[in-house]
């Protein structure tokens, strides 16, 4: 390839120009994203009204023990004796016997309040986010049990593995300032 002085300067000129363009491009990308940013980071959360409690949350999370856990909204709970979120369909008895419980890890505690009402509490360390209770509660009860991503556990992956596997697209990015989509907040207390 013949090279003379003029050719070299032309090449240099092109190089410098391209270099400047690239730097400007990187600057523009940075500027645009800062402008678009709403100063609040986002985190993953489940929209409880879209969730169908399919069970993917328990298995698809990158954590060994899913970041998703069940939450009980007491304000909208019916305190039923025959709780369809707590008891298997056609339970042998309406008591805390393991054969009657729906929860595979026994994470729901049933305590007597007054006849005929029972309080149901989630023992969170035991909950694995499988959503079996949520399914039962939403299907036949008030829907006071619902799943939420717990942000003390969530790694906030760039691509949430559960969101990718969610059949109802219930996962969305929410502002980190309000990281939960709670049911029963603002209901009659």
């Amino acid at each position, binding site marked *: 390839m013949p090279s003379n002085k003029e050719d070299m300067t032309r090449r240099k000129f092109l190089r410098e120009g391209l270099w400047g363009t690239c730097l400007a491009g990187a600057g523009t*990308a940075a500027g645009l994203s800062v402008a678009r940013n709403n100063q609040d980071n986002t985190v993953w959360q489940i929209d409880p009204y*879209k969730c169908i409690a*399919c069970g993917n949350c328990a298995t698809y999370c990158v954590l060994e023990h899913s970041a998703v856990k069940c939450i009980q909204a007491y*304000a*909208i709970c019916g*305190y039923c004796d025959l709780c369809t979120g707590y008891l298997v369909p056609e339970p042998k008895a*309406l008591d805390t016997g393991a054969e009657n419980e729906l929860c595979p890890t026994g994470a729901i505690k049933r305590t007597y309040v007054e006849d*005929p009402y029972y309080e149901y509490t989630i023992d969170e360390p035991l909950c694995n986010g499988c959503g079996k209770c949520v399914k039962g509660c939403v299907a036949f009860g008030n829907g006071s049990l619902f799943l939420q991503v717990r942000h003390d556990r969530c790694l*906030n992956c760039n691509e949430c593995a559960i969101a990718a596997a969610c*059949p109802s697209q219930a996962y969305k990015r929410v502002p980190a300032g309000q990281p939960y989509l709670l049911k029963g907040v603002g209901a009659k207390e």
Partner: protein
Amino acid sequence: MTRFACIAMFTMALLVPCLGARGEMRFPPPEFESGYQFPQTTHPPTARSALYEYVDAALLVVTLLLASHLILRRRSRRAIFVLMIAALFYFGFWRDGCICPIGAIQNVTLTAFDSTYAIPLAAAAFFVIPLVFTLFCGRVFCGAACPLGAIQDAVLIHPVRVPRWLESGLRLLAYTYLGAGVLFAAMGSTFLICRYDPFIGFFRMSGNWNILILGVSLLLIGLFVGRPYCRFLCPYGVILRHLSRLSKRRVTITPTECIKCRLCEDACPFGAIREPTEDWPEGEYKIAKKRLALFLMLLPVLIAAGGWGGYSLKERLARMHPRVRTAERVFLEETGQVTGTTNASDAFRTTGQTSEFLYKDATKIRSRFAVGGGLLGAFIGFVAGGKLVALSVRRRRTEYEADPAGCFACGRCYTYCPKEHERLKENRGTLLARGKQ
């Protein structure tokens, strides 16, 4: 008695299951007589503060500054290695490998295409900062800051030489991966690059089995083929390659001038050292000129063929979008081609949207994928054609040089150069002299 009332209400609820679609109470909250106050819903822990992400971005800048100093000034492989391992532990194992610049490509793409998406500042910073450093100092990010590069670099024990043509051909995978990652991120269907990140499973010490197996096999290959992910797959590496060609400063094997002793010839495990070239032999020059003309004419053909190929893949590409998958399933169910429902089709039915609306949506997404797939194909065709053209262009080199595009700035080649040893000796001499004073 009251128990029976509850059971009666339960059977009533069975009869009218459609009532509770949006939180209507089937069982009104009881009025407690014993003075029981229901507990407040435990307020779940707040999200981790964003402070961490700013710390990460600041640490990335510090790491890159230090890396540039160690690579370009200090020229010490040992120091670079220590920094690389430190970056592996911090950005990899401690911060779980997320966020990284490779994945941030998709965040930036999504920002450009989806006006409702707010990119996290950390993602933007992680995307831009290494680019800027590459423009000034070459691929220092790959050499000392990237945890994915570090984990591969650390396991490299017996490098084998990959033939130039094979390396160049395999690199087409990286361009394809970049194109596909950008396409799917732009369509809002998935973050492909994050989903198939092979090493994130190691960083988090958990994850999908298939991905862990992919990671292990890449590391096993990496014992003999230096940095296989970086060279043949990394989409961010593709961008850095081209920026690095323009960089102001870059790795030079020799600190002063090349004496063509050929001692560094086999120093690079990544095949990034280019030997000096001689002028074309007279006969070959003419052949090369003809070949160049042929390839230049072939270039538009390849672009068109790639574009057509990508366009014809539109159905399959569109299936990566969950909305399209749901639409296809619902269509099959409604036309009676399959029996039973899936979770996704059940979920769709609970939304109360009509299937026509869903089909219309899917058609819209498919037509976008037709354009996107065509562009992706044309891009791949362009890269393949460009590689052919590059084969017939000969750059004149008078000394042994590190190819700025392929050099990962790992610093292995420095000590192969006898001139480097002279420099070190001199340095030691001046230090000693200073000590004596």
